[in-house]
């Protein structure tokens, strides 16, 4: 069974939501596809206890209930070819054909290996937020937030709101860099306000710059960490360590479609023109996919792409807003650049591939990711190299190898059974 839409949008974060609303407002029939249970993406993830953030609450229900938007929750895109996506959800598989495709499938967290990072109790920083919002119990737990970037503040706020006792935030960037970033925030008043608000909510929680978690300690679960601050090394007892080093664009789908990538940085991103068009005709990309830029650039780029995709006029002021939002992203990348200390955290016996339990030292002597994979199984597991491949690229060990289909692990029946069962609730 193939359903046909004017516009298919992958990812229902700010970028995908803005694109869906824009395209539908011009009369297009839209499929809005996301693997998560609720629209919002990661930045606007719906909290099982507290609902959506205020701004998201104001727009999401109207977008997903729009008569011309078919909202496909908990639906994974597992393959893509010219003009159609192969989708599966918990019970069925089907194809969605489109005239225009807008990729808005965002980013994942950059997780870097260090001794003890595989212990239960150690999560991503965004990871802890995502888990808390889906019902993970944090009440009374002693949490440490670490890694890099403003996401750490947001993670700390979420942890606190869910009843965790946040012991401290440990940022790897040095204090001078963080202060320069903060002083430059006046150019983006919304961001400055957000920062002030986050800091306000975190009153009393120490924020340490120039600090790196050396090791997570514990037997079957996290019990303590060893953290190195400018004042020296210190042990700290805790139940949770939420640690993330920024975000990595989810380029695998764009890659499968043949979109040209900009590979100037460590992690590839999709190359787009001012209308968010990728190199593949009919395929647009917005938001984090085009380089980590945050909520505001995703939203405005979704707005642009949603209009451009259906041939509607794109206003010059949107393009100006887009450039301004992207400048914020550049400032962010610049001031929270990862230090060499972060790249040296893993020891020879630290596991880098969590799926296949491959230690760093096993990769020695291999020229590239493929050679290492064939010999050690590094990257052969269920995450398909999403975690270790990005980490090894960041550590400068080797660039991420090419990925093979499917885009995500998929039921064999999705690939092997003739697709005949129409998806329920198709809008036509």
């Amino acid at each position, binding site marked *: 069974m193939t359903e046909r839409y004017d516009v298919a949008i992958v990812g229902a974060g700010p970028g995908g939501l803005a694109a869906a609303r824009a395209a539908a407002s011009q009369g297009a029939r839209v499929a809005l596809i996301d693997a998560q249970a609720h629209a919002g993406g990661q930045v606007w993830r719906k909290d099982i206890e507290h609902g959506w953030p205020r701004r998201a609450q104001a727009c999401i229900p109207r977008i997903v209930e729009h008569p011309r938007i078919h909202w496909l929750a908990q639906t994974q895109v597992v393959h893509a070819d010219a003009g159609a996506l192969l989708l599966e959800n918990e019970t069925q598989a089907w194809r969605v054909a489109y005239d225009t495709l807008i990729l808005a499938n965002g980013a994942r967290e950059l997780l870097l290996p260090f001794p003890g990072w595989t212990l239960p109790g150690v999560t991503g920083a965004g990871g802890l937020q995502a888990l808390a919002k889906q019902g993970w119990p944090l009440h009374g737990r002693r949490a440490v937030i670490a890694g890099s970037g403003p996401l750490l503040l947001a993670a700390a706020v979420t942890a606190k709101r869910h009843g965790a006792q946040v012991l401290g935030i440990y940022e790897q960037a040095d204090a001078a860099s963080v202060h320069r970033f903060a002083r430059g925030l006046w150019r983006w008043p919304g961001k400055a306000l957000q920062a002030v608000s986050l800091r306000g909510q975190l009153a009393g929680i120490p924020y340490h710059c120039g600090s790196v978690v050396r090791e997570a300690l514990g037997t079957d679960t996290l019990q303590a960490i060893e953290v190195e601050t400018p004042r020296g090394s210190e042990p700290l007892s805790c139940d949770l360590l939420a640690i993330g080093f920024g975000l990595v664009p989810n380029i695998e789908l764009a890659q499968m479609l043949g979109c040209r990538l900009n590979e100037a940085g460590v992690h590839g991103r999709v190359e787009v023109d001012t209308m968010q068009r990728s190199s593949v005709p009919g395929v647009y990309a917005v938001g984090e996919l085009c380089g980590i830029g945050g909520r505001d650039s995703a939203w405005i780029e979704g707005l642009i792409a949603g209009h451009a995709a259906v041939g509607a006029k794109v206003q010059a002021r949107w393009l100006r807003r887009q450039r301004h939002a992207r400048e914020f992203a550049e400032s962010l990348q610049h001031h929270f650049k990862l230090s060499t200390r972060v790249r040296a955290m893993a020891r020879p016996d630290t596991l880098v591939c969590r799926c296949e339990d491959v230690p760093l030292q096993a990769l020695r002597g291999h020229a590239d990711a493929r050679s290492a994979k064939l010999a050690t199984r590094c990257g052969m597991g269920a995450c398909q190299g999403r975690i270790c491949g990005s980490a090894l690229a960041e550590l400068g060990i080797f660039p991420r190898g090419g990925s093979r289909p499917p885009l995500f692990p998929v039921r*064999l029946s999705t690939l092997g059974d003739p697709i005949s069962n129409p998806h329920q609730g198709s809008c036509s």
Partner: protein
Amino acid sequence: MKSYDLIIVGAGIIGTACADVASAAGLKLAIVEPQAIGGGATAAAMGHLVAMDDDPAELALSHYSLQLWEAFTDVAQIEYSRCGTLWVASNENELASIPAKLARLAAVGVHAELIERQRLYQLEPALAPGLAGGMRVLREAVVYPPGAARHLLDRALARGATLYPRQATALTRNGVELDDRSMLSGPVLVATGAALPRLLPQLPMRQRKGHLVITDRHPGIVHHQLLELGYADSAHGDADSSVAFNVQPRPTGQILIGSSREYGSDDSAVSMPMVQRMLERCFHYLPGLRDLQALRIWTGFRPVSADGRPYLGRVPGAQNVWVAAGHEGLGITTSLGSARLVIDQLLSQSTAIDASPYDPARIAA
């Protein structure tokens, strides 16, 4: 110019097997391979060690090679797993073909047994109802081909062989030229599989594309390498495209699912219609696999000679050029025997089995 007793071009399973035998014989050896060791058809292969009985020459070479594989059963890197082969008969006709197969196998000393219907389901409870029975070859096994190539190469390197991580761009009067313009001199053995025509255009070689799907770890569902008895029709027929039921339990608990064969496609991209055909065939025999998680799909190109048998021996019309290539889907199984046949001839020693069916001169003639 560096001079060697033998220059092996290609470090897939065939080139590395030749390197192992040649280095053990004391030859001063160079191996030329620009890509990952065992990274071509070797990495794409299933790694099923199997005796195919429909061609006497192929059966002799398979059987010879299977005996040689026994020396590698304890090498961790090779992941040798003696799961046995279970050929599945879907009807009475296929079941009736088994006694003749048993006799052909027995004639060369391969022990196999007829499996009655009831026993078939005891051995493999996940098989679909309504099958007729099967034939089991208990001592057959599966290996991890790139690990095997790596191990064979490492043995050669430990005996003093030199690896050149470069592309061989041309055969010269007395050796090869590499892509950095350097020259190596000595007799040359070309083992570049489907890429053979680049150096030896006089030996016809076609590519036959295949697909494989591997699942996440789902241990205990499949116990033997399972094939449909009609497999040889797909493998040795000349159809433009065909699929056959061929499923392997990996020692990791993963399930490796084949197989497809296609001529006329040199695009390595995964073809979803072909994957669908292949899996449909698989579900016909193992319907319970439908709910398992597929992790990865890949393709590879089997090197197919003019008559389906590998070229093993001296290249006609060339004084010091040898070839070992064109094993189609049996390259992993027959690599070790192929290497012995070629190196024995190169050293003017007698061969353990008749080498004439593989003599490249048969094509030139």
